[in-house]
């Protein structure tokens, strides 16, 4: 039950993009078509899980015992950046079909604040390892869902008579705002 609520909370009530505003840059950049959105979302879920799997033990067994918690930011970003690089090299060598579909998005993820954000949030909330992994997975799914919904709307917007000044990013932001309003309605569930 605890994990069920964690999932519902991370996917809907505290959706990582639409409620917590993490990862809005790639969200705007890759939500122009549903295919791209799906690839990006899948890559984010994958990297988020890997990032938490590596940063959690680091924080627990290296940073905290040695009293160097203030190095968290610098250690996490380095771990995530090198992780992304390794994952890309590994996929290219070992699973070429997966690399073909996710590879393009992997470098973009280094500067995706959602990945780093989840890694830090897990530490601030003091989750256990299993809970941290579940939270990362749920946050990633939340990102994927938000991305797919908004990209589907934007695909239709391309065919609609949008006022010239609103074309492109502005209307996408307003769309995201309306979706965010929808997700706000889930807040009543967090009793």
């Amino acid at each position, binding site marked *: 039950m605890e994990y069920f609520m964690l999932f519902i909370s991370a996917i809907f009530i505290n959706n990582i993009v639409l409620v917590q505003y993490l990862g809005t840059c790639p969200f705007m950049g890759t939500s122009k078509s549903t295919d791209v959105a799906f690839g990006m979302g899948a890559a984010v879920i994958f990297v988020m899980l890997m990032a938490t799997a590596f940063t959690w033990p680091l924080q627990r067994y290296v940073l905290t015992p040695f009293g160097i918690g203030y190095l968290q*930011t610098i250690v996490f970003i380095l771990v995530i950046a090198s992780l992304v690089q390794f994952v890309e090299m590994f996929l290219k060598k070992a699973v070429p079909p997966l690399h073909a579909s996710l590879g393009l998005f992997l470098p973009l993820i280094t500067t995706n*604040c959602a990945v780093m954000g989840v890694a*830090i949030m897990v530490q601030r909330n003091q989750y256990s390892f299993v809970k941290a992994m579940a939270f990362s997975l749920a946050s990633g799914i939340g990102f994927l869902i938000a991305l797919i919904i908004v990209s589907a709307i934007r695909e239709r917007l391309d065919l609609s008579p949008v006022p010239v000044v609103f074309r492109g990013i502005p209307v996408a932001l307003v769309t995201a*705002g309306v979706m965010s309003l929808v997700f*706000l309605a889930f807040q009543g569930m967090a009793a």
Partner: protein
Amino acid sequence: MSSIKKEFLKGLWDELPPFRVVLGLCPTLAVTSTAENGFGMGVAVLFVLTLSNAIISAMRKIIPAKVRIACFIVIAASLVVAVELLMQAYTYSLYQKLGIFVPLIVVNCIILGRAEAFASKNPVLPSIADGLGMGLGFTLSLTILGALREGLGSGTVFGVPVVWETFRPAHFLVMAPGAFVCLGVILAGMNALNRHLSRRKGEPAAEPQNAACASCASCNLCITAKREE
């Protein structure tokens, strides 16, 4: 001297982030529920950006091209840790309000974007001017957006009541949806202003800016890194 002035001024209007060049959206949306938070975030970014530009530009000749992104990230991350510690020491309540977005300055596209597009190719003084201009532009934009959302959403600016008594604040604006809608409307307003200005000059109307990713320099560099392989 004039070129340094030019680099400084471009961040304040021509390439004003995030209104003209859509960069660093996460903090822009997340912390502007009050003018004070927006201003605080802007100053933190201004500090990191100016110093990271200065250091990167001073070291541009000894950083190997292949690992430059990693070097930029390490430099920016060290500065962000310094900001975190400074904020904990002197403005603890602001640090708590900005929360997770202080460490996240390190993944803000503006820092990496300016490092890649400007500081790694130019001498120290113009790079500092560029960082100062961009940082000030970002601070101004965030403060304005914050003042707007706070004023209309809770009736105060910097915590001071500004509206008449019968005004009913639209609380929606200080919450998540308000951030997206507000920024969207401002960007559209900037587009309209641009078109008006270029029409007055008799130039063809500039196309409204499109993909965020295309204007996000760090995304560009990801894509160029891809092509180089």
